[in-house]
């Protein structure tokens, strides 16, 4: 037996998560006891913590308790679930190479579904510019990172930002998902 309509009403009335309160849960003491990596997501009208759910090849999928999934490769988001105006797929081969040091411009492609459920691809030429060295304050450690800005397109450009450590881990990023969502922030809480 079920009460699907009542569940819908309850879901609609649920309070929005408080990013600051949720983030405060991940202090050094709690993070030290974690036995899995954690990524903290803010944006798209939500704030939530995600843990690894599956690994297929180089693609790592993270999942939260509130049914949000983020799939990434080398820290670059290639698909989302549960955000609403989700990213269906993305071609990040050029961006991945650029993060590893290739300097030439490259193409990026994002796939979304239109109102008729047909895939629509947005493409843009991108350039990745390394910035200054920073010290990223994770809950249980301080990590030296390089701030990197990725700019895609000339008119109304998509701008992504990454804080990447020497070992390739992206500790913090702001990545574009879709026109309606805009960007989300992903912060690595623990390795």
């Amino acid at each position: 037996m079920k009460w699907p309509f009542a569940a819908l009403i309850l879901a609609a009335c649920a309070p929005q998560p408080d990013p600051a309160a949720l983030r405060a849960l991940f202090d050094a003491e709690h993070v030290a006891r974690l036995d899995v990596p954690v990524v903290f997501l803010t944006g798209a009208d939500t704030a939530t913590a995600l843990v690894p759910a599956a690994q297929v090849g180089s693609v790592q999928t993270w999942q939260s308790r509130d049914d949000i999934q983020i799939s990434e490769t080398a820290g670059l988001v290639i698909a989302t679930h549960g955000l609403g105006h989700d990213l269906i797929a993305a071609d990040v081969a050029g961006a991945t190479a650029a993060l590893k040091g290739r300097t030439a411009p490259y193409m990026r492609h994002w796939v979304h579904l239109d109102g008729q459920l047909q895939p629509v691809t947005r493409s843009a030429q991108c350039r990745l510019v390394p910035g200054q060295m920073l010290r990223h304050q994770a809950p249980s450690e301080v990590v030296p990172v390089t701030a990197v800005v990725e700019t895609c397109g000339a008119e109304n450009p998509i701008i992504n930002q990454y804080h990447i450590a020497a070992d390739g881990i992206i500790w913090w990023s702001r990545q574009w998902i879709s026109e309606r969502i805009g960007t989300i922030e992903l912060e690595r809480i623990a390795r």
Partner: protein
Amino acid sequence: MRAFVVLWVCCLVIGSMAVGQDQPLRYNTYGAPGLIDMPMASSADDAELAFSVSSFAGQTRNTLTFQLAPRLSASLRYADLDDILGPGDVFYDTILDRSLALHYRFLNETPLRPAMAIGVTDFVGTGIYAGEYVVATKSLPGDLSATLGLGWGRFGGVGGFDSPLGAGFADRPARDFGAGGEVSVDALFHGDAAFFGGLRWTPNDRFDLALEYSSDAYPYEDGVAFDRRSPWNVGLTYAVRPNLRLSAQYLYGAELGAQLTYVINPLNPPFGTGFGTPPVTRSGSDLAAALAAEGLDLRAYRRDGTRVHVVVENTRFATSAQALGRASRVLALQVPSAVRHFHIALSENGLTGPAVVIDRVSLRDTEFAPDGGAAFRRTVAFAAPVEAGAVPAASAFSWDIAPYLTPNLFDPDDPLRADVGLALDARWRLGEGVIVAGTLRQKLAGNLDQATRMSDSVLPRVRSDFALYDREGDADIADLTLAWYAQPSPEVTTRLTFGLLEPMFAGTSAEVLWRPAGQTWALGAEINQLQQRDYDGDFGLLDYTVTSGHASLYWEGDAGYGAQLDMGRYLAGDWGGTLTLSRRFANGWMLGAFATLTDVPFDEFGEGSFDKGIVFTVPLSWISGQPRRDVLARTIRPVTRDGGGRVVVEDRLYEVTRPLTARVIDDTWGMFWR
């Protein structure tokens, strides 16, 4: 006239410097694309629905406008008009008037050429708003646009001149307000013509200002409802939100008017692809349980070497492709690695569609392909469903409680009546394809029982006694049926339904549908032996019995446009046909209109002359963003009379089997990986 032409030529010259600006559409007081009270040559975004209410001088117009196609829109209007002096100087305190308008943009704007449109209004109603026009609109520099039109009828009343179409169009026959409903084509583009036009300034997305010269003389309202002193109107529109606009107008040197316009577009889902549980990533205890966790009832299973064949019933997802995607991933996690192909068929009410053949390696390798699954789609094939061992139903009984709303629109005594309450829906699957289902409703509030207008129909009162049904009892059994669905062949399905079929009729309904694979058409036939139910909503029956039935032809073309033709016998014993034209969207929205002509003469039918109306279906998944299969479906008739009435039976075969077809699966394929 010369001044208009000179002004227009100037606009075109200046406009050649402006390359088609993307101004937000404005809806006029008639709820159609326009300036203030006059039309313009613009069109809304494809599929946009606009609800508008405008009021001035006791003239209130409620309009629903649908952009049927990128160039064609239709407006359905319900106007509450006070103080009207009709033909023959007959005075009306109030007229509640329904009318239909069409607007077609036949030329797009270019840097050197204006957009041009043609339109007709009120050609099937009483004719109060009857008029036709050809109109051109050109963008100008400085966020301006200019409009010039030539109108007939209502739009040819001020500064009129002999018809430019020649002597054959010189005279416009007078319309009698009458009962309405009859199509009047002999008046189209006849009689005097006149120019109208105006300017619109849209400095930003929030505001726009319009100034227009109206050629509408308001022949039935001037001097009675208000005193028309000037042909000039000015209006200001403010967009509270992108889809909600408020307008204030000063009209005809006489009155202030106000308008509210709300727009919605089925192609812009508020929650995108939605929320809900993400795809499963870990294996479960067993296949049936893992599928059930995804809202999929395992109905049959068979392993055949390196293939597994499964039949699942989708109880959760609005699109077939999403259900298939979830089933595929569950199988990939649950079945032995030796299995290389999954044959998955969807079923509804025991009826099974073609199997979708999924290559397991492709499924694994292309989930995150940067093409969004296009290459994977090419590896998927459709095959005939195969015999597989039936699995006992995981959940044979289901129920739901949800609020209901039963509006009754257009009653002359009170155009908006409604009841609200709670509806208990229960469904019990006795065996494969054998289903007991019912709906019990408890009214909580409303005023449907206050309707006092009694039917004056000379036909058997199969629908027009709706007020008696509304008045009797707060709780009723809306339907309670036993249905048996069968599938003699993959392309032929049958249904036999017995019981309380709908609030007004009980009996037996038998149906057969032939839906050839890969075709855009299907054929069906239905026969019903019916007895009218008592007004109290219990098990009692009235004396009236009838045998009704139809042969039906269904067609769905490209871009979601479709038609249905039903020919047969209706509830009042009348013979005839119903044509339904509709547009469906992959996300589950459907909008359509129907008209029924039977051997009942128009004057016997009564007000409206023949049965007609609009139908729409809105998926609740679209509204809520949650994965749901239920929909909000409504039929709205301007008048409920007895001719052309058809029994309502739950789960007719065409709609039940539609989600199972390869075509629908293909149309929704984008949701496979969701």
